[in-house]
């Protein structure tokens, strides 16, 4: 009897529609977020993460309405990320029905925002998203740094130190995405995951690079992640969440079936 490893489908939402990951050339519409969320819930998803990529004020309003609608029909934890910059943004999302928010760039511009957010709402609802890229050369010891703007802008911040700092500021969970792997379908950067999961005491969600079910298994077994996040393998019917869980269970990982 113990805690199950979690599978979290991630939905990129733009103006009220689910879109395929932004790293891909052809952005395909993947459906109505409420329908998609219900489908994943029925398949046994352990949580759902929405990444709001709406750049406009109107798109933002649509997202809030979407969260309200999903939360009245889907009774599993919902996380919303993208554009969370102020305490007020967090309150708005929680009031709409989100259970957690994911903070990314705002933490880099102002790390104390993480502490402020945790003090106001509790660590349990504050996820810090870390986008990391390997910066060490071949043959050197591994080193990763934090990047912003979808991996285009370097910050010079060491990813491992950053993870420890976010933990110390009260983050309840870390969502770690390898920008080298994101969109490649070649699996998580498990060296990065392991480095972080072995150093922090809080749960870590592995993200970026899932192309098949074995990658999910590897994220838990090699990367030490408490949860694995994936988008495209679920969106277009390549696999169901249930198949993913069966694959993990078959390799001895405890999951909720």
């Amino acid at each position, binding site marked *: *009897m*113990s*805690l*199950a*490893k*979690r599978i979290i489908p991630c939905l990129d939402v733009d103006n009220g529609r689910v879109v395929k990951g932004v790293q891909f050339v052809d952005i395909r519409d993947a459906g109505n977020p409420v329908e998609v969320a219900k489908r994943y*819930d029925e398949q046994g998803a*352990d949580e759902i993460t929405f990444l709001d990529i709406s750049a406009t004020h109107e798109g933002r309003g649509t997202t809030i309405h979407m969260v309200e609608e999903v*939360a*009245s*029909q889907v*009774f*599993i*934890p919902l996380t919303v990320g993208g554009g969370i910059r102020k305490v007020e943004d967090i309150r708005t999302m*929680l*009031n*709409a*029905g989100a*259970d957690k928010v994911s903070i990314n760039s705002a933490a880099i511009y102002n790390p104390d925002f993480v502490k402020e957010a945790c003090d106001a*709402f*509790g*660590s*349990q*609802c504050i996820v810090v998203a870390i986008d990391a890229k390997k910066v060490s050369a071949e043959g050197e010891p591994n080193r990763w740094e934090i990047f912003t703007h979808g991996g285009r802008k370097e910050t010079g911040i060491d990813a491992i130190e950053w993870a420890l700092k976010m933990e110390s500021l009260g983050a*309840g*969970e870390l969502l770690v995405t390898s920008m080298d792997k994101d969109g490649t379908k070649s699996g998580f950067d498990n060296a990065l995951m392991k480095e972080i999961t072995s150093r922090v*005491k*809080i*749960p*870590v969600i592995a993200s970026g690079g899932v192309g098949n079910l074995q990658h999910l298994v590897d994220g838990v077994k090699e990367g*030490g992640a*408490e*949860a694995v996040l994936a988008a495209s393998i679920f969106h277009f019917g390549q696999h169901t969440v249930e198949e993913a869980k069966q694959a993990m269970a078959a390799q001895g990982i405890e999951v*909720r079936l």
Partner: protein
Amino acid sequence: MNQKLVAVVDYGMGNLRSVSKAAEHMADSQTRIVVTQDPQVIQDADSVIFPGQGAAKACMQALRDTGMAEPVKQAAQEKPFLGICMGLQVLMSHSNENNGVDCLDLIKGKVSQFDLSGHPALKMPHMGWNQIHQTQDHPLWHSIAQDSRFYFVHSFYVAPEDKNTIIGETTHGQTFPAVLSAHNLFAIQAHPEKSADVGLQLFKNFLSWNGH
């Protein structure tokens, strides 16, 4: 006009919306779910849901500030009462959170932080889906399978003095009491409002429970 009024205690913290939505989802047309800060509504309600997230100190402070501490205490002694997460912990005598906080003292016992020193691989908060082992029969377990998984997120756990109040247990490094019951009171450490079908079933059971 046999309308049933269910009060969801709002002390300004936590995911109240999720709790009221889940209850509404399972309520029949005769049942009204009201999220409230009004002590009078809690007194008038047929049953009470006491949800919660956050810290014990802030929770106790908010209960006193809103004047709800007494009606909540009273409700917990006389009508069907469902405590969730922090709504379980503050029923105890004392919590070790925030350098020590005196709580509602409805169930004798204390609230302590997990000690995971012997379990380097386990994470804190205890976050995610874990099994609840039903150690005693209860009307609220109706149609919920033994060892079903519920969604948890917490770093403290309750330890009642009277072990007979424990009706469900969960293991995270150590086995801890996950569900307590005494008379008309049922309190759970997990979040049924986020526990998919089994959680919704628990709400359904609660809404039709007369407290015996």
